[in-house]
């Protein structure tokens, strides 16, 4: 009977990757891509954008692997890079998004909100917000992270997160009201 093969830890895979083993890095990616894709999917508008953002995130992970000290779990470190990359993506694409037409999007928030419709409406409304407003709403309200977690992921202070969240909610309300009036 053969002995069970232990899976290498993240730290071991990092060591192998730094030594030039691409297959070890591929294994790291396989382990963490689900989490990264779920974060990026909140900001991407199609599969192509999603792929671009995720590649950008993992390229940064690869380039900064030497700097990983192991003070926090590797998953958290990757999530932090993912959130910051998404923020950069939002900032880079903000101008293009502002021109999305309102036609065909009717906003009515009743007691029974259809989830798919709500997601569509929210997705559109968020395109009208700034990058940091969008990021903070996504992390706090859609990903249901705590203020502390958002602070750790973004590098903002907790009070800063609260202020930005308050402003973001107000901005979102205005966008939804304005489009409802039309």
């Amino acid at each position: 009977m053969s002995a069970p093969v232990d899976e290498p830890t993240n730290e071991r895979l990092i060591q192998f990757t730094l030594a030039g083993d691409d297959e070890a890095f591929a294994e790291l990616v396989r382990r963490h891509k689900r989490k990264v894709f779920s974060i990026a999917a909140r900001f991407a508008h199609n599969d192509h954008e999603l792929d671009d953002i995720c590649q950008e995130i993992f390229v940064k992970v690869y380039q900064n692997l030497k700097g990983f000290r192991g003070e926090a779990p590797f998953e958290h470190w990757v999530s932090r890079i993912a959130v910051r990359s998404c923020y950069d993506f939002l900032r880079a694409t903000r101008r293009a998004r502002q021109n999305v037409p309102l036609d065909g999007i009717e906003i009515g928030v009743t007691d029974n909100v259809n989830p798919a419709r709500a997601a569509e409406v929210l997705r559109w409304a968020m395109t009208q917000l700034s990058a940091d407003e969008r990021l903070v709403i996504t992390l706090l309200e859609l990903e249901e992270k705590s203020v502390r977690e958002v602070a750790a992921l973004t590098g903002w202070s907790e009070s800063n997160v609260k202020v930005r969240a308050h402003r973001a909610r107000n901005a979102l309300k205005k966008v939804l009201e304005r489009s409802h009036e039309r």
Partner: protein
Amino acid sequence: MNDEQLNRLFKAARAVISDTERAELGFETRLLARVRLERVPFIPWAVIAWRLMPAFVVIVVAVGVWAIAAPGAGPTDLRSVIVGDQEERTLVTYFTGD
């Protein structure tokens, strides 16, 4: 719109889980191809020039040695090349009477 309505909207939107499985297909392969591509080092011109410095030094030394060791070169001025030989002949003719 009030906070309650907004929260309902968030709650409904949270229920939608985006399916990323299709986008994840073959992701490692695409990523590794890009990583390998970016790993090819870019060497700036200054670095190339610095690496070629020993070759430049060898060339300069060789030219210097050749310049010192080579037999004396003739005049480089075109006029003196043409006239120089005629002056010598004139002198020989004068002294020898040929």
